[in-house]
């Protein structure tokens, strides 16, 4: 039903909604999914995903025809592959550096990645400068995303499905299982002989690969990229999206992104003016309040709320069952655990 709905969206919605709400939600969802993958399966809450997707976007934008930047005139598909490759390698490098740190130190290191990337591209005018790179040529298949948003929407939809399915698959591989073991108890996994930093660095590389897809889509979406669009505020936005959706549930990435882009757009229409306190220009206040409510009421995000409602309903139907008050990270089914461990 959901797939049908999403596939039919271009004929249901006007081009603005398709582009500014749905396509935006899909690519932001992929960016948030890269963060949720790391936090949910690897126990790593990274603030570096925005910096990494910026690397992919800037690399691609410099390689194709564009105003500003290097505008080297590469074929957009080749430039996209190069952008993803460079960002993934960059992610692996950052992962290698950050892999031995945990908790707040990991958070700070990854935050530093995003800040460094922002200042790098803002300062190095031959690659971007503050004004960024404009009129970036998307592939012929995508065309002009403003005049005809459907192709980009489908590209983002297919990418989202592949990312979702890919992460689900990866979680069931031995690599994914080891990663979940490291998330739960790194010391024990080390004692069992697993190379913990290597696994964490590789996982960070996978997260970078996912984020880089979002970076490419974001450039096609606006046909430009500038440091102002990948600044600290955007880093926080990606985290807010993940938390609203559910930091420990992969589906939460797209749910959070859909809620975020809907509120971002429509709060400017709905919000009443209350003196200088509240009004359509107070989007950040609105999203901040929602963020606070979610964090206080349901640390598992919107998905967590759904789960607790579902659990309560089951409990009243079937009598008391085991239920956890706090969100549990993503974990694959036990039978697969067993199978893979053999």
């Amino acid at each position: 039903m959901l797939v049908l709905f999403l596939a039919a969206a271009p004929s249901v919605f006007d081009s603005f909604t398709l582009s500014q709400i749905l396509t935006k939600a899909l690519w932001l969802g992929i960016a948030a999914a890269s963060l949720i993958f790391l936090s949910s399966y690897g126990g790593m809450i990274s603030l570096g995903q925005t910096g990494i997707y910026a690397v992919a976007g800037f690399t691609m934008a410099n390689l194709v025809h564009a105003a500003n930047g290097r505008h080297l005139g590469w074929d957009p598909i080749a430039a996209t592959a190069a952008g993803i490759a460079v960002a993934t390698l960059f992610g692996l490098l950052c992962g290698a550096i950050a892999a031995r740190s945990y908790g707040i130190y990991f958070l700070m290191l990854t935050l530093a990645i995003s800040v460094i990337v922002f200042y790098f591209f803002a300062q190095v005018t031959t690659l971007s400068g503050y004004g960024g790179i404009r009129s970036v040529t998307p592939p012929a298949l995508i065309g002009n995303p403003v005049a005809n948003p459907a192709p980009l929407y489908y590209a983002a939809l297919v990418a989202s499905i592949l990312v979702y399915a890919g992460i689900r698959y990866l979680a069931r591989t031995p690599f994914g299982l080891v990663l979940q073991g490291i998330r739960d108890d790194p010391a024990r996994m080390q004692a069992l002989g697993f190379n913990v930093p290597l696994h964490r660095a590789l996982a960070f590389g996978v997260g970078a690969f996912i984020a880089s897809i979002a970076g490419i889509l974001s450039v096609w979406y606006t046909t430009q990229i500038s440091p102002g669009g990948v600044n600290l505020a955007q880093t926080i936005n990606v985290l807010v999206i993940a938390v609203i959706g559910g930091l420990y549930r992969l589906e939460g990435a797209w749910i959070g992104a859909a809620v975020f882009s809907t509120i971002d757009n429509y709060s400017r229409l709905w919000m009443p003016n209350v003196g200088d306190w509240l009004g359509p220009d107070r989007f950040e206040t609105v999203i901040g309040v929602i963020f606070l409510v979610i964090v206080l009421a349901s640390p598992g995000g919107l998905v967590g709320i759904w789960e607790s409602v579902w659990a309560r309903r089951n409990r009243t139907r079937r009598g008391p069952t085991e239920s956890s008050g706090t969100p549990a990270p993503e974990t694959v089914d036990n039978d697969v655990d067993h199978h893979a461990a053999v």
Partner: protein
Amino acid sequence: MLRPQRNVEFRRLLATAALGLLAVTACTSNSTSTTTSNVIKIGILSDCLGDFGSFYNDDIGGALSVLAAHYGGKASGALPKDGMTGAKIAGKDIQIVGFGCSDSTASKAIEETRRLVEQLGADILIGPLSGDEGIAVANYAKTNQPNKTFINGIAGAQEATLKVQAPNFFRFNPDGAQWSAGLGSYAYNKLGWRTAVTIGDDYAFPYTSLAGFIAEFCAVGGNVTKRVWPPLGTTDYSSFVAQIPTNVDGLFVGVGGAGLITFLKQYQQANGKLNSNKVMGNLFWIDPQLLAAIGTPMVGAVAANMIAADDTSAQTKAYVQELSVYPATQKDAASVFTLGYWNAMTALGMALTSVNGDISGNQKALQAALAKVVIDGPYGKVSLDSNRQAIADNWVTQITPPPAGSNVPGLKTILQIPKVDQTFGGFFDSSSTLDRTNPPCTKKTPPSWVGHEIPVNFG
């Protein structure tokens, strides 16, 4: 941990979320009605976030005041952002469909432009505010909306008109370089500077603003020995202050917005009190908000923009009176932000009147009328060149000690720079690149106004 119900749960969850989104967006999509022939829809784009967010109500207040003063608009509240209804131009209802709230980044400006134009159905957009935003909106107008009309708010990057040349993007304010006209010659001929150093935020607008000083100063024989570029949003300027050499005759400051307050404080901590003969500022120095925030340190220094703040002529008084619908905006009448948006709406009102409110035919008649508009504004006439860029007078102004009972410095206009055009008499053209190192500092034929500055004294 076993969760046998999860797949079913999530499918339902996603389906519910999707349907919810469908309901929400479908409901709101319906609200975007098509244009009827008796309604002209206008969107106003400004910044409510970022470095220039504090000018939000000055911007939209400048535009809406025109509707209130001339076209029967009724303010819906005390602040401009509360909206305005009831305005009619040439018998057509003017509907303000919404205000765009950007943050001085190109990506947000485009998102907000698209919301106003594509979602809310604006026929005409007034805005944006800041340099890079202006370039992005001009490109969007040219590539994606050739049948709608865009009138710049107060964005001042040269490229938006000189390079992009969108046939449906009009700018009734001078660009950043034009606002600096007169200062290069003043520094060389009056203050005796032979060498100078510049400092400005590292993005499109200051590139343009400082280019205006550099082009003129170098043309008359001066030499700019160093250009320092702190990133936009810098909060600690100490390392940039340290880069400013002291063995030069003068410093030209193009740091804007809130950054100027911090910069001046730190500059004085390092170098002592400002010597007004050795320092000069761009348009921000004489902005009413910043003047009030910074106070006396800048007294004696000279800056320039399109406003002669101490002019008390009937025309200026009439302009200030027009702003009376919004007292907070009226207080900032002498702000380029207020005047820029006022110019835009004034020009639109004149053009719409001249075509009798007819925006059919892909607005081509309206656009032709706009290109011919001459605003007889509070500080002189404003007309457009062939790239739809303003040609206007610029005013060199000296900051004076606060009047008795006030701690906000006064302003004394000293020179009128007549009919400043965007090319500086051929110094800039569509192939010009303005960046950290361009334009180069070269001695050449000075712009036409050098030597023809008109001394003024408004008493």
